[in-house]
């Protein structure tokens, strides 16, 4: 009785709290449209309903009503969501479903407020707040990736190429960033980078509920862009694309944003890049922040199809039904989805293998890293490579 009394005092309120009870728990949220497999990465990884959106919704309701206390276990379950947006697309209730990602984000924000977050999440926040990047690397080295590409620091060209922390500091991301930079220059695009003045975009921090840190980063970036006269931004990373496009305008941003695959597709359409024959079979992995979050499915495919001789094949879960690599919602850094056989990255590379493709084409540095690691874990290095769309295009340059 004592614990019941103490629990009942511990109720929680979130902005969308008045609709949490509307979840019917039908379970559609964890499937793709054709039900051929589970499409919720955390449910797929752990296999318990607790980790599916419907399970989370019921836990949240219990937590809001004081039946469940805020504790590390509850926080782990909330932070194991990869924010892939599959639930939003599959939920049977129109309108209500649009609020699902907001509800999960609001709960995480409340956990941040209460100071009960898993240690890797706490470490991420600390690293970004202290260093401007989650890698804890010196700001002065942020532009090192660009050495030898010929791309210069932004001084008023048409576009800013924003690479983000993964593009700037991770080996796999840097490779992708270099290819994009070289292609843009080769096609004659007027573009520059912020190099050591670039800071984290804040997308993943926001997804993890750290709204204060996000706001600080966003306002800082908006001010910087405005001061430098940035009107158009090309992002390497769909995460940055997502927050620039959907969150920054409310904070006063007035620049246009493009994902690099949109620009590449346009350049190829306009014959600004001449390609030669490259045989082989490639399958494209839709990043959640590009596909489901922002509806960009065609440009990366168009770019790949522009390579003569290259055969593009689809995985059984693609487009709006694509299975997440597991790196969304900050999980790329916090690794809350564990690394077992059913970890999303490993599931995804096995799906890619089914297609018979030799290459998984990616449009996100986070996905690239997650899938490259999964290929190694699955022992598939001899059969599958992970490459950025830009890297594939660059290799086909005549």
């Amino acid at each position, binding site marked *: 009785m004592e614990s019941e009394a103490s629990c009942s005092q511990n109720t929680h309120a979130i902005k969308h709290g*008045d*609709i949490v*009870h*509307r*979840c*019917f*728990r*039908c*379970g*559609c949220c*964890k*499937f793709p449209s*054709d*039900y*051929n*497999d589970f499409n919720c990465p955390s449910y797929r990884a752990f*296999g*318990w*309903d607790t980790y599916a959106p419907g399970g989370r919704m019921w836990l949240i309701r219990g937590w809001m009503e004081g039946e469940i206390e805020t504790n590390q276990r509850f926080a782990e379950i909330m932070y194991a969501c990869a924010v892939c947006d599959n639930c939003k697309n599959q939920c*049977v*209730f129109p309108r*209500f479903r649009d609020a699902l990602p907001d509800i999960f984000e609001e709960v995480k924000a409340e956990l941040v407020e209460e100071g009960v977050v898993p240690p890797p999440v706490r470490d991420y926040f600390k690293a970004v707040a202290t260093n401007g990047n989650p890698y804890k690397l010196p700001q002065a080295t942020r532009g090192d990736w660009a050495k030898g590409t010929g791309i210069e620091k932004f001084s008023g060209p048409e576009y800013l190429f924003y690479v983000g922390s993964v593009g700037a500091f991770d080996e796999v991301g840097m490779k992708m960033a270099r290819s994009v930079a070289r292609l843009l220059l080769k096609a004659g695009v007027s573009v520059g980078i912020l190099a050591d003045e670039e800071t984290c975009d804040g997308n993943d921090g926001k997804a993890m509920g750290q709204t204060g840190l996000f706001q600080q980063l966003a306002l800082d970036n908006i001010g910087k862009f405005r001061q430098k006269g940035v009107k158009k931004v090309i992002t390497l990373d769909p995460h940055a694309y997502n927050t620039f496009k959907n969150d920054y305008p409310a904070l006063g941003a007035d620049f246009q944003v493009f994902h690099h695959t949109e620009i590449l597709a346009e350049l190829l359409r306009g014959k600004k890049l001449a390609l030669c024959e490259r045989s082989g079979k490639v399958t494209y992995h839709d990043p959640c922040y590009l596909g489901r979050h922002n509806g960009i499915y065609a440009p990366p495919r168009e770019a790949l199809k522009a390579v003569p001789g290259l055969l593009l094949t689809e995985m*059984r879960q693609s487009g709006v039904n694509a299975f997440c690599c597991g790196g969304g919602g900050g999980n790329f850094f916090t690794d809350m989805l564990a690394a077992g056989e059913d970890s999303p990255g490993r599931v995804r590379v096995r799906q890619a293998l089914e297609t018979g493709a030799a290459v998984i084409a990616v449009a996100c540095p986070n996905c690239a890293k997650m899938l490259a690691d999964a290929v190694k874990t699955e022992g598939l290095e001899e059969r599958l490579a992970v490459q950025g769309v830009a890297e594939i295009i660059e290799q086909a340059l005549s």
Partner: protein
Amino acid sequence: MSLTGLVIPLKGGIVMDMKRMNKIVEVNPMARWAVVEGGTSQGMLKAYLQKNHPGLRHSLPDAPAATTIAANVSLHGQGRLTQQYGFNSDMVTGLEVVLPTGEICRIGSPSIGPHWFSRGPALPDLSGLFLGWLGTTGIITRVGLMLYPNKKIRDVELFVTDRVELIPEMLFRLTHLEMLEDINVWFQPKPLMFQDNFHITIYFTGDDDEEIEFKRKKLWGVMQPYIDSRDGGFMSIQYIREGLLEMPQRSIADFADVPKGGGFEYSGPIVPIDHFPRYAAKLVELAAKYRLLYAGAARLISGGHSMMFAVSFAFNRDDRDLMARVKEALEEATEFALEQGGIPWKPNFIEQKMILKKMDPSTRRIFAMIKKNLDPRGIMNPGNWEVE
């Protein structure tokens, strides 16, 4: 087994989540049966057949795709082929069950050899010891299930009438055709366009346009007298067609969200088809008495020998008073069904007690005998099917 609260541990214990035991073990495409593990979901079998055996299908219920095949048969679930072939539990071709003693037991042809083609005949049908028992006699770990031809084209017609007393006769005429896939009757006050009418949704299939048009012509033919007498007519369904043909029909869940509260519950007794009008009247009476939003729906079973009549009420989980009224209304609906000689379907523990009370004492003794012998310590889903 997640339907209708049957996993609620009424007397404590362990809830077993079977969903990771989800392999599709075998499909015999020629003999048209599949063997699946106890946690295989309806959605997974549907997707597997679509990909690997597109000419075959199973009787998919309109329950969410996450529900399992084993749970569905263990509570005598229904599906899209129930009108043609009976309850989904009638389609079982063999079982593997873990008994309360821990023994693993195979039922039907798999108890004799490797082939899962018959759950009983020509043996005594022991599947009846597990099907309908709501997990109180054993845990189903494998199910053999009949598959059926998946015709290339599926179509639907919607007949509308305001003459409830004519509905049994209309259903009788439709089932006389022996060529329809599924027949549902439904009525609801919202949205307004459906108010005061009864809708008969008639599904039919064919491998080509000729077969489809032949069946359409025949079903229009049997309904023509009602059109001539102005007692009904076929409704244009262009804008709801896609939703009606979806399997499972996700739009059914929409009803749960009408009061913006994420829930509906129904009492769905199995009744003779000529009882349709009295159940329809009772539903409207209950909705008025308890101030509830209702939906009535019936599905024909086995060519019209019986139907499931769902008395459904939507509720808002945040409104405790409304939920209490729904509970009372559903209990009254079950009482009514038992008075009329109907059998409550997927009964929760309260309805089980009501059924057992009404049951012939000799039958009740057999119930008790079976349970006592299979589960002498009463460890399986305790609180369900308990004879006091």
